[in-house]
């Protein structure tokens, strides 16, 4: 047999293309490069040739054999793939069926909002402080400049308990006094106090038990400007850079001056709607410079130091973040409702 030319390899390609099973490919393979294959035999026949000629033809034949091997392997792989496809398609699943989700729990939305706030204030250098829920009237009222018969005691209807001189605390503000006492005169005092508080109210926007976060800073030279700056930084962190803030004079017995902060209404974006009574603003927190009487009751000299404090309703913030108009379901614990809080809020940490 002579040297295989390109026409002959074309024959091989055609044969391979015609083979429709791997068995047929094996037959073609035997015919060409098997032990008695055409190229194999031609290579064997080279031993009769002169060395020079043998080398020349040997190179050609070896190249041809390599190419043939490659063509055969390619075709084999192609067919294997096709055969496997047929096999795998028999295992076909309906991939439009919803996946089986892992069984997971979820933190209560109020816990998540509380932690969001705590983390924010921790980053701002506040430490966490706590006080009891069953509080003395001294810490809850008198120490905060709310004496007996003060009209401000009308503002928050309290739950009393059968322990003399005790109430369920009506706000987290008593922790201002406790926090200052714990600091024992050291500066700065920089705390936040999250916790449950109680008022005798029960409707869509008032719960008899709810959660607040109180913040207190006491140091030399604290100003109302510092309060504004801190609150604005907080509002931006919590509600986004597009939010606008507004400050209004207000009244709390334990701060003087007292200031309320409004932020852009989330429902209308500031154009005015029912939620914001047409003003474009919603109140988010009450604050002010710590009243001198309160500083004194905490063991600090109001002539030496000043401070600011603010209190924030966690429910109110949760209502805003999650767009709720009724806070009662938050305590009903219908799991379907609680699990609906699994949607992404735009905040990876919430």
């Amino acid at each position, binding site marked *: 047999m002579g040297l295989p030319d390109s026409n002959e390899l074309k024959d091989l390609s055609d044969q391979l293309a015609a083979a429709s099973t791997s068995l047929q490919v094996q037959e073609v393979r035997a015919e060409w490069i098997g032990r008695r294959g055409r190229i194999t035999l031609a290579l064997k026949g080279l031993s009769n040739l002169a060395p020079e000629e043998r080398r020349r033809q040997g190179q050609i034949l070896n190249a041809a054999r390599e190419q043939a091997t490659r063509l055969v392997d390619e075709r084999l792989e192609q067919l294997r793939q096709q055969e496997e496809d047929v096999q795998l398609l028999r295992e076909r699943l309906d991939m439009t069926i919803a996946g089986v989700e892992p*069984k*997971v*729990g*979820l*933190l209560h939305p109020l*816990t998540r909002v509380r932690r969001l706030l*705590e983390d924010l*204030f*921790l980053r701002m*250098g*506040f*430490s*966490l402080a706590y006080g*009891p*829920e*069953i509080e003395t009237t001294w810490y809850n009222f008198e120490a905060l400049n709310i004496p007996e*018969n003060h*009209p*401000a005691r009308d*503002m928050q209807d309290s*739950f009393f*308990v*059968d*322990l003399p001189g*005790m109430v369920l605390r009506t706000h987290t503000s008593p922790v201002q006094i406790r926090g200052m006492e714990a600091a024992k005169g050291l500066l*700065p005092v*920089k705390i936040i106090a999250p916790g*449950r508080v109680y008022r*005798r109210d*029960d409707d869509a926007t008032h*719960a*008899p*038990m709810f959660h607040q976060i109180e913040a207190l*800073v006491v*140091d030399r*030279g604290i*100003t*109302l*400007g*510092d309060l*504004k*700056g801190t609150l604005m*930084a907080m509002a931006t962190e919590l509600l986004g850079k597009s939010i606008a803030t507004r*400050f*209004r*004079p207000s*009244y709390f017995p334990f701060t*003087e*001056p*007292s200031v309320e902060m409004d932020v852009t209404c989330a429902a209308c974006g500031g154009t005015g709607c029912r939620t914001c*009574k047409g003003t474009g603003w919603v109140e988010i927190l009450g604050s002010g*410079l710590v009243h*001198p009487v309160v500083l004194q009751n905490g063991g600090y000299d109001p002539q030496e130091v000043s401070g600011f404090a603010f209190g924030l309703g966690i429910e109110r913030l949760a209502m805003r973040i999650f767009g709720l108009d009724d806070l009662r379901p938050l*305590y*009903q*614990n*219908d*799991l*379907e409702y*609680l699990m609906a809080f699994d949607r992404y809020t735009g905040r990876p940490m919430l």
Partner: protein
Amino acid sequence: MKLSHRWLARHLKEVPEPAQVASGLLQMGIEVGSVETWGEIYREIELVEVVERRPHPHADLLSLVTVRRALHELVTVVTGANNGFTGDRLWYAPPGTHLPDGRVLETVTMRGIPSPGMLLSAAELGFQDTTGDLWIYHGDLPLGSRFIDEVGGTDTIYELELTPNLAVFDQSVLGIARELAAVLELELTPLSAPLEYRQDPGVAEVKDPLACPVYGLSGFEVAGIQNSPLWMQVLLVAIGLRVIHPVVDVTNFVLWDLGHPMHAFDQQRVVLPIEVRKAAEGEVMILLDGSECQLRADDLVIADQIGPIALAGIMGGQRAAISAETRQVWLESAYFNASGIFLSMRTHRLSTDAAIHFGKGTDPEIVPVAAQATVDILSDCGAMVTKGSSTIIGQMPMRRRIRFQPDRIRSLLGVDWTNQDISQALDRLRFQVDGDWISIPSNRHDVTATEDLCEEVARVIGLDMIPVTVPHSPNVPGARNQEVEFQERLRDLWVESGYCEVVTRPFWSPSRDVVTMADVPDPVRISNPLRAEEEMLRTSLLPHLLEVVGYNRSRRDQPVAIFELAPIYARKQDRAEEPMQLAVAEILDDYPQYPKGLPENLAIYRLKGTLEWVIRRLNLEISTVTDRDLPAFMHPGRSATVLNTEKRTVGFLGELRPRVASRYHAKRIGVLSLFDIHHTKSAISGVVPSPSRYPEVVRDLSLVVPEASTVGTLNRIVLDAHLADLKNLRLIDVFSGQWGRSVTLRMVFQSNTRTLTDSEVDIQMGHAIEILRGQGMMMRER
């Protein structure tokens, strides 16, 4: 408080637009809750003239009155009124008109004759009426004029929300006008001159000058008026007050105009001298509203020689009250001690307008001014006001002064405003700076210190003008304490394990007990609960969780796996304690929607496994045992007690008795209650072993064991054998057959130093088997 825009004109020389009023008030800290237009309904009501009056053909008490309307045909309406004759001008409401009482007029047929619309009396228009007759108009408006023109056009009514500090001095049109004048730099109209009291003897005595520092009483004879002037009626009606009698209306008007309540007594019914004194214990009086008031010794009363005629500053008594026949009155204008009035108001639950004003503190200097204003208005409305005797008792209190400390104001606000900026701002609110001192207006009982002045300066100049800064104190990282970190981690672990956190309210009542749990001996009770079933604070957390289970099960047939970490409340003598508890509850029933759930009888191991994982994860120093007494509501065969390191019971885990579970609409409920949980501070160091490089040898050991023995015992025996290379021991199979109870343990052997040979493992296995045989546990024959 309701504010009439029009009323402001009595005190402001120029009244700004409503939008400016609202923004000015906002800057001063007064929220405008709502803004409404008053008087729209009067646009439809039209001035007409009677051209004919005839009797109704079918009814003796009715008449047919034909009136002329401008630009309209004649109209004949049926009326029951006795007046309205030819030539009289009347107010006519055509069909479709809305009346102040809410009626909408239609054409009605009265005794066979249609009557389109109605001719109106003053009462029907919402104004004062002594007769019930039609309102005959005597003014100069042309025919066809609308009633709205007669009342001076529409008005804007603001609903203001006053914080308690502002309510001290802002609960009047004058107060609001002063705030607006300060913030918008407007000019105020001067007030009336004060009344000149004559100091007549024998008229009045003040027995308690502390409770009543200033008491003015002046006598008048009022004659010649029937009704209050319309302009005043309009202002009172616009803010929602009823108009009653001129003397009453005028005192009401002055109350809201100047913020100063006054009271009038009928001279005929008073036996002089009038005394201002504390009530005698047990004294009783009938108040104006007809109620009987049991007076107490700390109530201040106005009394004559017979007895009390008013509960001072709160409400008059019936005996000396003004009536339609009253001609001679004693007009009382006084300054009372605010806290005394506040106390009496609270004690007797009488939150009258007067009490609300006096109880917050009024302006002593306005006492004679308000008295004169009353006289002036009465004269204005054409009444003959004859001055009689009068007296004023007590000294006008000195204006209080505090130090003027502009540096301190600047440093508290964080501003660089000049002394002049600051004193001008204060001056606009009538504070007078005099060198180092500042004198406080007589009605500003709320101001006692520089901090209060800070607020005033900030209100007038504007909070927006205060620069935004942050505290300069060096920033130290904030910290949660370890106990709290631990609690947060505990919550996370249960969430990661598939349990949903719930938040329940801590109110409870034993009437809600299905299972009775009291983890503390003495509960804390609420003296004023909202509901009977919330009469105390919980003594255990688990019952709340079980209610949540029941609530969810009653709504839908779905798995429930929940937990809460929250305090319970205990009474310790006169103190309270609030220890934290963890409670977990989970439905163990098999659900059709489970793709392939645990078999029901193994589901409790999921809860137990989670606890074991949590124990490991947080290094909780607790363990479970099965040989202790359990709460009666627990499944006796499927529960365990949780012990701490001192072997004290700190909780329990297991299934509720199915009978109890059925009360919560489930066959099986797994629960965990931990009532003593603490952050274990002792961390174990080097607890994570390095992985071995040598292969594991795995042997399964199948044993037939006595029916009563447990896997726990079995494990213990094997572990106590201290097999040198046993790395892991795990239960892989357990079942009961004819031959008894069979258990298969998978034992994993591995060395850290060499590859174990089969014979080495065989020796260790043999040792274990021998010990087990000694305990009656045999290798199972294959």
